[in-house]
């Protein structure tokens, strides 16, 4: 489609969008006056029913866990897809990080300050990531948020060193296994409910004492599985993109 035609189509669509959007807004309560009732009901019952003080996590990993299972597999499939797209294609070689033919375009190696700072950050970041993953049922956080934080640790290693060090620290096979374990773990935790005579993804594990780390039953278990999957998945994405940019070359020297 030509550019002008595309913009005309855009303007037409936006007009249509605004008409429908305004129509929809008319049925919505004004900002700041949430009418309920679902949020209020869950806010009232979640702490007593599930012993989880972060209701958002309780919704994600318990009340609405089946949806989150789908979301988890969206993540899984797109990591698999991206890895597949970024693999070495026919007619490409991996030069194993050999020097480029244009040395003046090589990135300078990181300065000592950058190296010291990023390396010092890795420990606290891993700890923070684990804390966020394991405390999702108590305070804001959970598997998704903590997993992303955990995945930044290998990225810092890359920033402080080079891709070779990154590859040594994160084994591709190990990350694949970890991602599969995380995704499969979530799936299997759901079966606990069926085995114990309830429903799929029912919260059947002991709920523990409200406010303690090992409380809230399957919410904690699913959060840990999700954290593993998200962290491994994002490391796989980083791996794919870094390998693609730094190592994979067209045969004959082109990029």
């Amino acid at each position, binding site marked *: 489609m030509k550019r002008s035609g595309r913009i005309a189509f855009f303007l037409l*669509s936006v007009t249509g969008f605004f008409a429908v959007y305004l129509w929809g807004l008319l049925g919505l309560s004004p900002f700041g006056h949430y009418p309920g009732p679902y949020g209020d009901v869950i806010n009232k019952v979640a702490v007593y029913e599930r012993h989880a003080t972060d209701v*958002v996590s309780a919704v994600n990993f318990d009340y609405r866990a089946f949806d989150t299972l789908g979301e988890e597999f969206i993540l899984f499939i797109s990591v698999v897809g991206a890895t597949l797209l970024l693999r070495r294609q026919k007619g490409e070689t991996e030069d194993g990080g050999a020097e480029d033919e244009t040395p003046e375009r090589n990135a300078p190696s990181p300065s000592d300050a950058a190296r010291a700072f990023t390396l010092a950050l890795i420990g606290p970041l891993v700890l923070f990531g684990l804390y966020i993953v394991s405390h999702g049922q108590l305070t804001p956080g959970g598997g998704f948020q903590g997993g992303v934080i955990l995945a930044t640790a290998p990225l810092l290693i890359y920033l402080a060193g080079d891709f070779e060090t990154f590859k040594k620290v994160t084994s591709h096979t190990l990350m694949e296994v970890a991602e599969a374990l995380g995704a499969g773990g979530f799936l299997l935790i759901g079966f606990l409910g069926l085995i114990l005579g309830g429903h799929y993804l029912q919260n059947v594990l002991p709920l523990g004492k409200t406010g303690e780390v090992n409380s809230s039953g399957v919410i904690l278990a699913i959060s840990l599985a999700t954290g593993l999957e998200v962290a491994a998945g994002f490391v796989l994405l980083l791996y794919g993109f870094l390998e693609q940019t730094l190592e994979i070359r067209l045969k004959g020297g082109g990029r």
Partner: protein
Amino acid sequence: MMHFLSFFPYAVAAWLFVMGLYGVVTSRNFVHLIMCLAVLQSSTYVLLLSIGYRWGAVAPVFAGPPVVGTPAVDPVVQALMLTDIVVEATVVALLLALAVQLHKNTRTLNPDELEALEG
């Protein structure tokens, strides 16, 4: 003030959506296009959060000492927004991977320079 604020977040959501869409439609570079798509999708965060917001309410986290009588905002839309962010991040990753392969095969990232699909 009340009148202005009672629909302002919904207007922000619409603005982000339209600007993101405008960027997608007129983009001359696929990486730029993907970022515009991310802007477009961020409109849904604003919309979801504003639907569940309530003046003077606390966050739906009851880890501290009990807050008697203070209402909390809706946790359901917040949970939904988390899903939204995850989907956005993965979609962006997948599209960027496609853009990398596209550039390798066609030597261009400009949507206008692409010819019809080849087998």
